[in-house]
């Protein structure tokens, strides 16, 4: 049994999903947080059901791959119950989707979410009235506080096996209604067996829906185009637009009959927004927010790193004192502790504050504002303004960033955005930058690397856009209200992302450290280093670092831990020069994305394009490493 959460983007579907399923789906305050279906098996009042979180859609006509995934799911799978989630503060617009979903003939319940927000806006909704008019149960909720969620599922399960009945109120204008019924008649005369209700199919055919027209066959398509022509003749505009207006009209009427609008309370967020989107101050604040973010992560991170590393050093020294020096046991303990320390002492101190900061920016709703501010610049380069969303998410992790490109309508824009998003330092690479460059050379150097990276990303965008020229379609992006993030939800999101490091990367890191330690013990790493020596020579790095670069393909932070292992010390500055540290970091930041990212790139843009991206980033990394090799000594004044 499948229960689907369906609604417009950013109405809080994932928050309700998580309230029932535990924190499984990432939430965030920007449209398109969910780009693929999330599933969870839940037990509801004695029923065992698959709860499905469906990506947000504005209507059943899709604009991008994320939306088509949602549509395909609703049209092809057997869904037992639709929970239609609405942002109550945008009631009239949201009802248009409700009316469309109703036609699917699937049992349905309406969830009026964000009731607190609607009230603040001065919209008072009578859910009883709305329920009578729609002929569907309506439940009020405040998702992020969990208010009403239990009641929603209680009433929802009662609704199973009760498809919505035709409601008088929803009937359309006579002329359009006649066309719909005639279309239905044609469909039923062709065949009695339809998986979807004939009324739904008839409407979609009149809307000139490609998929449905193809499926319905030439006879139905011919009848549809005759009826469309008739509508166009009487109404003087495209049939599709006439039907959309019909839905809009009904939604407006539903809204007027079930809600009253009073004066909205004055909203301080409007003032904040006019500051943060100001043509001058908007950019100043953007810079301040990003640099502040950087300082906060670095400050907290180095504080934690010092505290944890010191303790772990003592522990390592104590353990090593128990075994004879130079033996196999010594090597084993030393490499094991290197791996443990790499995770707890170097990665986690920076990763945790970083993820918290990013979660805050996501949940507050700042990201779409950044997209708005940057669209002008991006458009000049030849990119789509909405590309900014995946690119910023790339600072967290490249994998969700590649997935997030599904909110872009064109294939070319998705390719560009995913390549650029992988060039952006993800939290693992930021950790390398913080722990190596900021820790040994000072935070200004690290900030410099971030800026340098941004510059390279922009020029890469420019270059790639020239190689694959295409006029980018204009940006149309909904900018949500600011929302004060609930700490509980943020913490769970951070844990969702952190868990991957703790259960997957960290063990890998310790294992890798052991492999490298044993390899060095038996002198095996020598061969790998010799094979990679052309690269290390070009970059002016010690030959022993060859193997660490390979480990970076598995996980970027591995390269950092392996660095300490390969050099035989955690105080890197004693062995490497400042230039070498910068070159190493820059190379790690740009070269071939890690394994997990490569896999998701293949899924999003295909094998050929992924190979292209890998080659491109490798060449770019080598070139940028070379630039750093010669530029850094000049900057150091030597």
């Amino acid at each position, binding site marked *: 049994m499948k229960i689907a959460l369906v609604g417009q983007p950013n109405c809080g579907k994932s928050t309700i999903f998580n309230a029932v399923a535990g924190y499984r789906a990432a939430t965030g305050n920007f449209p398109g947080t969910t780009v693929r279906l999330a599933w969870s098996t839940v037990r509801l009042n004695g029923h065992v059901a698959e709860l499905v979180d469906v990506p947000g859609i*504005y209507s059943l006509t899709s604009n991008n791959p994320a939306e088509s995934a949602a549509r395909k799911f609703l049209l092809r799978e057997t869904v037992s119950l639709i929970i239609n989630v609405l942002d109550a503060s945008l009631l009239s*617009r949201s009802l248009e989707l409700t009316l469309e979903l109703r036609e699917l003939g699937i049992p349905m319940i309406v969830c009026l979410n964000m009731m607190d927000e609607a009230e603040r806006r001065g919209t008072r909704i009578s859910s009883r009235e709305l329920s009578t008019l729609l002929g569907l149960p309506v439940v009020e909720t405040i998702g992020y506080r969990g208010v009403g969620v239990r009641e929603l599922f209680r009433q929802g399960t009662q609704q199973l096996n009760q498809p919505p009945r035709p409601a008088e109120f929803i009937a359309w204008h006579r002329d359009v209604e006649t066309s719909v019924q005639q279309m239905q008649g044609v469909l039923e005369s062709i065949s009695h067996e339809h998986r979807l209700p004939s009324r739904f199919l008839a409407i979609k055919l009149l809307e000139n829906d490609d998929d449905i027209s193809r499926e319905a066959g030439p006879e139905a398509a011919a009848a549809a185009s005759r009826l469309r022509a008739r509508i166009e003749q009487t109404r003087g505009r495209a049939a599709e637009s006439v039907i959309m207006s019909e839905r809009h009209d009904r939604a407006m009427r539903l809204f007027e009959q079930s809600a009253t609008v009073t004066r909205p309370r004055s909203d301080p967020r409007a003032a904040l927004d006019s500051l943060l989107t100001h*043509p001058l101050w908007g950019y100043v604040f953007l810079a301040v927010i990003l640099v502040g973010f950087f300082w906060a992560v670095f400050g907290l991170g180095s504080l934690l790193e010092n505290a944890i590393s010191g303790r772990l050093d003592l522990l390592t020294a104590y353990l090593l004192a128990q075994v004879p020096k130079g033996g196999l046991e010594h090597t084993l303990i030393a490499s094991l502790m290197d791996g443990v320390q790499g995770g707890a002492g170097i990665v986690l101190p920076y990763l945790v504050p970083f993820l918290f900061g990013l979660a805050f920016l996501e949940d507050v709703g700042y990201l779409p504002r950044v997209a708005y501010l940057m*669209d002008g610049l991006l458009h000049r380069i030849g990119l789509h*303004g909405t590309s900014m969303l995946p690119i910023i998410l790339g600072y967290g992790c490249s994998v969700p960033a590649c997935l997030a490109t599904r909110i872009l309508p064109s294939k070319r824009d998705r390719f560009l955005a995913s390549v650029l998003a992988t060039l952006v330092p993800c939290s693992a690479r930021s950790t390398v930058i913080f722990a190596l460059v900021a820790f040994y050379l000072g935070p200004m150097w690290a900030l410099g690397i971030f800026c340098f990276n941004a510059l390279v990303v922009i020029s890469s965008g420019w270059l790639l856009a020239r190689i694959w020229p295409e006029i980018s*379609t204009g940006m*149309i992006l*909904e*900018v949500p209200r600011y929302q004060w993030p609930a700490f509980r939800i943020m913490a769970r999101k951070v844990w969702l992302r952190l868990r991957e490091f703790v259960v997957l990367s960290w063990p890998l890191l310790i294992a890798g450290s052991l492999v490298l330690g044993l390899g060095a013990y038996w002198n095996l790493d020598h061969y790998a280093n010799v094979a990679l020596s052309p690269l290390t020579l070009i970059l002016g790095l010690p030959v022993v670092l060859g193997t660490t670069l390979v480990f970076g393909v598995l996980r970027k932070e591995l390269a950092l831990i392996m660095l300490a292992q390969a050099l035989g010390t955690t105080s890197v500055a004693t062995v490497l020069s400042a230039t070498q540290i910068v070159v190493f970091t820059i190379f790690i930041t740009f070269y071939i994305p890690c394994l997990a990212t490569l896999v998701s790139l293949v899924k999003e843009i295909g094998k050929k394009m992924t190979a292209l991206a890998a080659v491109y980033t490798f060449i770019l990394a080598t070139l940028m490493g070379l630039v750093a090799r010669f530029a850094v000594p000049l900057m150091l004044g030597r």
Partner: protein
Amino acid sequence: MAEIVAGQSATRQLAQLGIRAGTRLTVRRSAPMGGPVLVDSGGSMVAIGRGMARKVSVQILE
């Protein structure tokens, strides 16, 4: 707002966000460097790229 002269999919997308012929819009901000305009339509804010915004013709009220 008077009318929208744009491609079918753009017109649909705008309409889904409540921007259609006959509705009232408030322009909140317009970004520099030929950036997008930020439009308030019935309580929801939408950023519209400049090229797209040119295809939306409006009648200025008061």
